[in-house]
C-alpha cells in the first residue's frame, strides 16, 4: 500500500544539502549529518512517541553500511523523543536510501494514522579512494582540482594554481578551504577550437614565470613572489611556434653530465597540428631522424643513455635510441598519453601510461624499459573517468592526470609512486 495515493495526504518535504568532500573522513562519518537531519525532520512530523522503523536500500551504498546507518537513525530519533518500537507501534517510518544522477537521496515515508508525510534528505556521494597495490611499486592518486570546465593543463606555483582551459587561463589562490578562483584571462583565440583540445604549461626557465601553448596560440606570464595574483602580467598571442614537449626536472639538471645535456637538458620542441590533435613529427632541434606524427613524447633515462619516447598516431610506441628510431614492444595496453616519473624505485625512472580502451575504465600503469620491451612495474591504478592529458610535475617526482569523469566534469589527480 503506497501512502502517496491516500486521500488527504499531506506532504512535507525537507531538503538539506550536505556537502562533504571525497577526501574527508571515514565512510561512517558521511552518514552522521544526513541521519541527524532526517531524524530531526521525522521527529518534527511525528512528535514524541514510539515508531516502527524500516530501512530499504535502493542505492549503491554497500549493504555492510546499512546497520551503521540504522544505528545512527535510531540513535538520532531517540534523541528527538522517537524511540524505535516494534510493528505494533501506531506510527511507522519507512526510510528508503535512494539516489539519482547527482546525489544520494534518503526518503522517509512517515505514516501517522491515515496520513503520510514525506521527508527527503540529500547526501552528496563521497568515497575515499584507496591506493592500489602492485608488484614493483604502488601508484596512488590524490585529486588536487575539480572543475566543470575542460582542463587542459595546470601548474602549481607557490600558493597559486594556474589552470589552462581551452579559452581562458584561470588563476586560483590557496585558501584554508582549498583553491579559490581569483582571476580569468581570455586567451583570445580567433580560430575554432579543436574537438579534442590540448594544451601545455611549463615553468619558464627563469623560474619566475610560465609558458603556455595551445593550438594556434602561445601565452606567457610571470608570477613574481612579491606580486599579488591579480597583477601577474599574462600575455597571449597567435603563434604556430613549436611546443615544448620535454621537461627535465630540476633534480636531473643539477646532476646532469655534459653528455646528458646534449639530449636530455635542452628542451625539445615539436610543431603541433592546430586543426587536429597531434604533433606533426617535425621537431627542433633536429635530432637527425624523421619522426612520425605523434600524440605524446617524453625523455626516458636508461643506463644506456637517454632516449626520446614517442607515441605515434598509428598506435606504435617508438624510442629514439642513439640515432635510430626503434619500436618498443609490450605497449599494446597503452593509450595515447604517457609521462615519465622519477621514483627512486626499481630502475629509478618509470613511464606512466594511460589505458588503451580495452578495459571498461581508464587506468594508469607504470612501466620500465630496460631494453626495447615495456615491462609493467605496477598494478593499474583505476581512474574515475577518461584520462585526457598527462604531464610530469616540475619536481619530476609526481605527475598530473586530467580526467574527464562520467558526469562530464574534469578532475586533475596528482599521481605518485611508493616503492614496495
Amino acid at each position: 500500500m503506497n501512502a502517496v495515493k491516500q486521500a488527504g495526504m499531506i506532504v512535507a518535504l525537507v531538503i538539506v544539502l550536505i556537502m562533504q568532500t571525497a577526501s574527508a573522513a571515514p565512510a561512517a562519518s558521511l552518514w552522521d549529518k544526513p541521519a541527524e537531519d532526517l531524524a530531526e525532520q521525522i521527529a518534527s512530523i511525528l512528535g514524541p512517541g514510539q515508531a516502527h522503523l524500516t530501512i530499504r536500500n535502493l542505492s549503491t551504498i554497500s549493504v555492510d553500511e546499512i546497520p551503521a546507518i540504522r544505528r545512527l537513525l535510531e540513535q538520532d530519533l531517540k534523541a528527538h523523543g522517537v524511540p524505535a518500537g516494534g510493528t505494533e507501534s501506531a506510527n511507522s517510518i519507512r526510510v528508503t536510501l535512494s539516489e539519482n544522477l547527482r546525489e544520494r537521496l534518503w526518503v522517509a515515508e512517515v505514516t501517522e494514522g491515515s496520513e503520510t508525510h514525506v521527508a527527503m534528505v540529500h547526501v552528496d556521494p563521497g568515497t575515499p579512494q584507496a591506493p592500489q597495490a602492485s608488484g614493483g611499486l604502488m601508484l596512488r592518486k590524490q585529486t588536487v582540482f575539480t572543475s566543470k570546465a575542460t582542463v587542459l593543463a595546470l601548474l602549481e606555483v607557490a600558493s597559486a594554481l594556474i589552470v589552462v582551459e581551452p579559452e581562458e587561463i584561470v588563476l586560483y589562490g590557496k585558501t584554508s578551504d582549498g583553491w579559490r578562483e581569483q582571476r580569468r584571462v581570455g586567451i583570445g583565440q580567433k580560430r575554432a577550437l579543436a574537438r579534442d583540445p590540448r594544451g601545455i604549461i611549463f615553468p619558464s626557465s627563469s623560474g619566475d614565470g610560465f609558458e603556455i601553448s595551445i593550438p594556434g596560440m602561445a601565452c606567457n606570464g610571470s608570477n613574481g613572489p612579491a606580486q599579488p595574483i591579480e597583477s601577474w602580467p599574462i600575455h597571449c598571442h597567435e603563434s604556430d611556434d613549436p611546443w615544448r614537449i620535454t621537461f627535465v626536472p630540476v633534480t636531473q639538471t643539477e646532476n646532469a653530465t655534459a653528455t646528458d645535456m646534449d639530449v636530455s637538458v635542452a628542451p625539445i620542441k615539436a610543431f603541433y597540428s592546430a586543426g587536429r590533435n597531434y604533433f606533426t613529427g617535425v621537431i627542433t632541434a633536429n635530432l637527425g631522424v624523421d619522426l612520425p606524427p605523434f600524440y605524446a613524447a617524453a625523455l626516458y633515462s636508461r643506463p644506456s643513455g637517454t632516449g626520446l619516447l614517442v607515441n605515434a598516431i598509428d598506435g606504435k610506441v617508438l624510442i629514439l635510441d642513439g640515432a635510430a628510431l626503434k619500436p618498443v614492444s609490450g605497449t599494446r595496453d597503452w593509450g595515447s598519453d604517457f609521462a615519465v616519473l622519477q621514483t627512486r624505485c626499481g630502475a629509478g625512472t618509470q613511464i606512466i601510461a594511460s589505458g588503451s580502451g580495452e578495459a571498461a575504465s581508464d587506468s594508469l600503469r607504470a612501466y620500465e624499459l630496460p631494453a626495447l620491451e615495456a615491462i609493467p612495474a605496477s598494478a593499474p591504478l583505476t581512474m574515475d573517468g577518461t584520462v585526457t592529458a598527462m604531464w610530469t610535475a616540475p619536481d619530476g617526482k609526481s605527475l598530473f592526470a586530467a580526467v574527464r569523469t562520467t558526469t562530464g566534469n574534469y578532475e586533475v589527480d596528482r599521481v605518485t609512486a611508493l616503492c614496495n
Partner: protein
Amino acid sequence: MLRRFAISCVMAALALGAGARTRPHYGGTLRVEIEGDPWQRPNGLARRLVLDGLTRVDADGTARPALAVDWKSENDDHRWQFRLRPGVHFQDGSPLTSVAVVASLNVICPANCPWTAIHAVGSSVIFTSDSPMPNLPALLAADEFLLPLTITSEGKTPEGVVGTGPFQVRGFTNGMLILAANDTCWQGRPFADAVEIHVHRSIHDQWLDLGVGRADVVEAPAEQIRQAQQQRLTVVASPPVTLLALTVTDSGALANPLLRAAIALAVDRGALYNVIFQKQGQITASLLPANLTGYAFLFPVERDLGKAQELRGGLTPPPLTLATEGGPVMQLAAQRIALNLHEAGFNVQVVNAGSTQHADLGLRRLPLECNQPQAALESMLRSVGLSAPPPEQSPVSLFNVEHNVLDRKTLIPLLYLPSAFAIGDRIRDFRLGPDGTPDLANASLEDAQ
C-alpha cells in the same frame, strides 16, 4: 526495482563512455542506418548533427553554454537575457546574430512556447514572460529549440537545413542523407569527414548491413535489444529516455475521476515490460525516471484489479477508443492494455491515431527532452498539453508538481524505455547524448588516418 536501477546505471555508464581510450583519429565516413526520418522531431538523428541550441545540458543535468555563452535572469525569472557566442557562423557563412536567433525561434515555436515574447538586443536575446521561467536555460537545450537558419544575411530563405552544428548537409541521393564535416564549427571540427545516413531501412536490413560491414551504426529498438545481444551485436544503450504513457481524456464518460483512477489501476505494466518490451527499460508510475529524481518509488506501479473494479462502482461506461501511434509493437501494447481494461469492466477498441481525432485514450511515446529534471517535466507536460506551474529547482517543488499532475489521472506513465544502437568494430568513442541521440561529432573511426 533495484536490479533494474543498477542495470540503468550500467547502461548510463556505457552511454557516457567513461572508458580508457587512445586519442581519436580524424577522417573517414561514418555510415549510419535508420528506420525513420533523420529530420523528424523530436530527436531525428540529423538534427543534432547539423543544428545547435542556445544551451546544452551535460550528463548531470546542468545547463551549459552552447550558442549562448552566458545568461542571467531578472524580475523573478520573468525576464532572461542570453548573450550570444561571438564569432559563430552558420554553415552558409551567415553570422550568428541575435536577430537571426529570434527569427529562428519565432519560426520553430510560433505558439505554446515557454516564453511570451523574444527580442534581439545587441548581441543578446531577451525572453520575457507573464509567468516565471525558472527552467528556461535547460529548456532551451531541448531538441525543439535547436536553431536552423531561417533567413540568410542577404535576406533570403536558405536552401535546405542550415545550422551551426558539426556537420552540414551535402545532399540526399539514393535514400542517403550525406553530411560533411563543418571545418569551422565553433565546437571544433568533428573527427569524421562525413556521415552518410541511410534512411527508411528496416531493422532487419540494418542488422544485415552491420554484419557484413556496410554500416557502422544501426538502430536497436528497445524491444529488440535482447535479440541484438543474442546475435552478438555490440549494443550501446542509453538510460531511460522515452516514456510510454497512456493519455486519458477528462471529458465524456471519463470526466468521472473515479473511472480514470480505475483505468490507472487496471493496466498491467508488468505484462508490457515482460512480454512486449522483452524486459528492457523500467516499469514506472512516475513521469520522470528514477535516475533523475531518486523518488520514483513513491508512485505505485502495481496493478490492482479489485480496487479498479471497486472504483468503477458498477458503472458501465460506453465503449472507449484507444488510439496508438503506428508500428506493430505499439499496436501490440495497445491491444494488451485493452485486454487489461476489459478485465476491469471497460470495453476498449484500439484504433490508429491517424484514423480518429478524439480518442478517449492514447498510447504515446513521450521523449525525455533533457536530463535536467525540472526542465524535462515542464517540456513533457507542454508536449501533452497539460498545464502546471513550472517546477522550481528544488526537488520538493518537482515532486509536488509531478504528484499533482499524476493525481488527475489524465496521464498514466507505464514504462521508461532506453534508446539503443548497435555499432561496428571500427567506430570509436561512440556515445549517446542525454536525450539518447548518438553524438557522432565526437565519434571517430579506428581505420581513419
